[in-house]
């Protein structure tokens, strides 16, 4: 069995598949790849099923030792990416392309320049032992494969029956650098807030906080005020979702991520629609965000 060697994990690199949905009764959220589109695309580029485990690297800086014969693809956040051969040859790696490693080489992800999380898929997938049906690291429950450390050797699974598809060019833009628009629909506790709070949510410009992670992305800006008679009232704990916009007592909104707690006690004013969830994964600290009301069936 071939293995990928971790030379340098960067700030934080996690193993992820599409998570373990359906275990809320034990207190687990689904977890799984934060940028699901990037995850699916990376897997498809190397002929893997969508469910294969790949690597999710925060901020770049990941260096991997790849054995000859490995196919890989890099999607999600952009940064300068190179394949360094034993002979010192340096090959630029294009995003969204399946690349074959012809002789043992080092894959180097430079610092990210657009977006935040880079997905690296290897043909065959990362075949660490699954925990409760998934190879995803749930950072809140501290469950699943440990974050990568220098010196780790991760098994690469056998090549799937599906071939590496012939796709020369997958025209997908890099994650946006400017204002990112998140579509939302009303949440269950919209009526806890003043009419003005809803207008403020939809009309102001928010700034992505540096205190954001896979549990939640905090937005900084105006305070979303509760109706006077509900100020200081504690909400009985209720179910939460990836995309729930929870508002803490000081009025600050947090958009919950894939590793969210299954229940929470802060009122949810709105919920980010499914089609906008991947955007959350790529928001850089300081990046501006606008929230708009999503219309249509979903």
């Amino acid at each position, binding site marked *: 069995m071939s293995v990928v060697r971790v030379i340098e994990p960067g700030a934080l690199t996690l193993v992820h598949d599409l998570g373990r949905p359906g275990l809320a009764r034990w*207190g*687990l959220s689904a977890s799984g790849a934060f940028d699901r589109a990037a995850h699916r695309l990376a897997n498809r580029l190397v002929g893997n099923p969508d469910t294969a485990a790949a690597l999710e690297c925060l901020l770049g800086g990941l260096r991997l030792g790849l054995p000859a014969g490995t196919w890989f693809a890099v999607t999600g956040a952009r940064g300068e990416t190179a394949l360094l051969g034993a002979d010192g040859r340096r090959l630029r790696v294009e995003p969204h392309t399946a690349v074959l490693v012809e002789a043992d080489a080092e894959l180097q992800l430079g610092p990210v320049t657009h977006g935040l999380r880079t997905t690296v898929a290897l043909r065959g997938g990362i075949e660490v032992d699954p925990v409760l049906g998934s190879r995803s690291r749930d950072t809140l429950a501290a469950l699943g494969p440990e974050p990568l450390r220098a010196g780790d050797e991760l098994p690469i699974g056998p090549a799937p029956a599906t071939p590496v598809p012939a796709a020369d060019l997958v025209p997908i833009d890099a994650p946006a650098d400017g204002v990112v628009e998140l579509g939302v629909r009303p949440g269950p506790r919209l009526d806890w807030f003043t009419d003005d709070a809803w207008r403020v949510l939809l009309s102001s410009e928010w700034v992505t906080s540096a205190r954001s992670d896979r549990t939640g992305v905090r937005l900084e800006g105006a305070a979303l005020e509760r109706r006077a008679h509900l100020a200081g009232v504690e909400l009985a*704990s209720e179910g939460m979702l990836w995309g729930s916009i929870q508002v803490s007592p000081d009025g600050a909104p947090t958009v919950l991520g894939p590793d969210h707690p299954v229940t929470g006690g802060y009122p949810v004013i709105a919920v980010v629609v499914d089609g906008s969830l991947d955007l959350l994964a790529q928001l850089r600290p300081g990046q501006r965000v606008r929230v708009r009301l999503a219309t249509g069936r979903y």
Partner: protein
Amino acid sequence: MRVLPYGDRALLAEFDSLELALGAHAAWSAAPAPGVIELVPGARTVLVRIDPEVIGLGHAEYWLREHGVTALDLPAGDTITLPVIYDGDDLDVVAAAWGCSVDAVAQRHAEVEWVCAFIGFTAGFGYLVPVGAARLPAVPRRATSRSRVPAGSIALAADYCGVYPRASAGGWQLIGRTDAVLWDAERDPPALVAPGTRVRFTEVQA
């Protein structure tokens, strides 16, 4: 039952009592509609996650109402018994809240049959409430949380009881500890308690 909006792929059913919410959760879980992916109980709510490709929000709401629940009986889940050494640091706080002696806290706590209402805080942490209408007086949370509560600690807050599945920070009042393993990812199922599980505590000596 009130059905509240919850974005584009969920609804929140809200009830007047925990018993109704638990009853609805049990009934809907027993025979979920196609497209209903997950039902997450809360203190007075059930979050209903749907796959909008399979069932629309309108149809899901219709289905919830058609299968409305009137039973007040708590669902009969499995019963587990946890051995407890009642030597927690906050027995005096609980005794004051309950208006009894420190020694009587263990007895009163062990007399109650508890049921897991919902899971929160962390994986495997069940919010336990007494079965039936009789509630114990509410216990205040600690003014400042402890930075580390050992695994197996049995604690009270408001009218809930909980057992810490692993060492973590915590603001509940500690009354004792158990050596039962509440959470083990290698085990199937990994959690000892899930919504509907009944829990009995029996006192053992250190």
